[in-house]
């Protein structure tokens, strides 16, 4: 139960940051926090109090934790890192071009250009 509360509050914090912050790096951090929350949620689905690692061996008499969520989370973490790295690379380019990562200022500068996209 504690895991669920922690996971849901992490997702909530992430959501709040995404909706309120205007700094692109902060928005990305917010999504990343929500991502960790989701991973924690997935892991806690398979958690079993007093369970062992899901590896078959001789003389095993304890219950095992569910291996499926662990496999899922491993994949999800890798995907999350890849996406985050790509997003950060693009944000660095935005910073180089506009000299700022504030969403409002970037949009205002783009209007000043040829005004086509914001």
């Amino acid at each position: 139960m504690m895991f669920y509360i922690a996971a849901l509050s992490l997702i909530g914090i992430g959501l709040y940051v995404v909706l309120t912050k205007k700094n692109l790096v902060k928005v990305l951090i917010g999504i990343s926090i929500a991502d960790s929350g989701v991973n924690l949620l997935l892991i806690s689905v398979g958690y079993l109090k007093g369970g062992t690692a899901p590896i078959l061996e001789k003389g095993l008499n304890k219950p095992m934790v569910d291996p499926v969520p662990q496999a899922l989370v491993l994949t999800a973490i890798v995907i999350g890192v890849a996406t985050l790295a790509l997003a950060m690379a693009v944000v660095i380019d935005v910073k180089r071009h506009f000299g700022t990562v504030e969403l409002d200022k970037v949009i205002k500068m783009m209007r000043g250009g040829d005004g086509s996209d914001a």
Partner: protein
Amino acid sequence: MSIDIHVYPSLLTLVPMLFAPLFLLFRTKVIHKILATLTVLLDLLIIYKLMLAMPIDEYTGGWILRGIHLRFDNLSLIYTLLFVTVIGTSWISSFKKNYPPLFYFLTSILLSTLNTSAITLDLFNIYVMLELSSIIAYILIAMKENWKHLWASLKYLMISYFAFTMYLTAVGLIYMHTGTLDITRISGEISPIIASMLIVPLLLKSGVFPVSMWLPAAHSLAPTEVSAILSGSFVKMGSIVIFRLTSTPILKHAYIPITFIALLSALIGVILAYNESNVKRILAFSTISQMGFVLAGGPIYGSLHAFNHGIFKSLLFFTVGDQVEETGHYDIKALKHAKFPMYRYIFLLIGILGIAGVPLFSGFISKSIIIHHMPLYGKIALILASIGTVASMAKLASIGYRKSILKIPSHYLIFATITVFVGIKYINYALSSWALIESFIVIAIGLAIFLMLHPKHIPRILEKLDIMVIEYMLTLISMWAILYIQR
């Protein structure tokens, strides 16, 4: 002589994935051509072999009921054929231009992920494919290294990263409640909030109105071949997963809110398209509208329209994109001075006749079948959207042509042939006096609107990043509310 090989659906994933790194290893154009041909031919051979033994179920690794569940059926057949046609033809066109080896590597992996999304029945596998194809799309959009492209790519990246995190949450919660990730074996009841968290990211992927305002910038700024791939095959991925989910008994009721969103998208898409002056953005908005048709059509008729739309929209993006790259103008007024060369204009017209639903072209069949099977409110909305489509496409046709030497580029020819072939071969399925009269009335009113109503400039406020997040949340909440009331 017949070669007897045993084929599995998973080969559709493996073959393009294995060929992809070879494009990076050998960097000469000749070898690229050979590799691309091999990939397409092998892919077509596998599809043909699988088609003979349809429907096939496969559990990866032989773990019956535990491995990833793959299935090749009618729906997969239509979608995999579309994916390989669009990407293969874009490769033909790309050999005439200077594309880096990275382009072939990425598109080959994209073909693999799209194929997988057409055969997989595993919720988590779908998540991986959504993320992987999006990562490829971000790089393809930003390949021109211009700040505008970077910004379009970043907007899409942010909103879909946010959305797919939500999709993953829903997958985790479904696993918690039901203990399975296989779409066909989910039982019990999915609460409305989980169902909407599962479906709205897929709507974002499939390019329908309130959630997909990333699409116009991304599709119109990308290079010609990339635009065709994105509009022809990439946005179709969300729709097939939605069809798979809503054909299960447990999520069947979710089809009603999806239809509402689809009809709204069909209408708003053409309004935005008609009032736009950038030619590639007209096509991008028309994609938003046509994806509304696809989703409103449901698994059987919608998949047909997805195929037809993929083909003629690629043709339109190729003709218009080549023209834009040649002249350097995006604006319709500037293009009216330059005009299309004659041969390109003919192919543009074939694409327009297809998308406008003129009899003897493929769009007529799928559009009239979809309209025929809708309830009354759906019929009215879709006919209005068809009128808008005719009006906005008449804008493109009004650019006009100039005399030029006659060329027949093979990539245009492939798409045009399929559009006409499907339109003539299967006309019996849609042909009725009612459908004919309806299509002519739609065209007449559409042309009248084009002649009388002047387009106005609509500000692009809906495409701002922070507004997009709000649009997404609003769609999520309204989807949840409708599902909650239905229960």
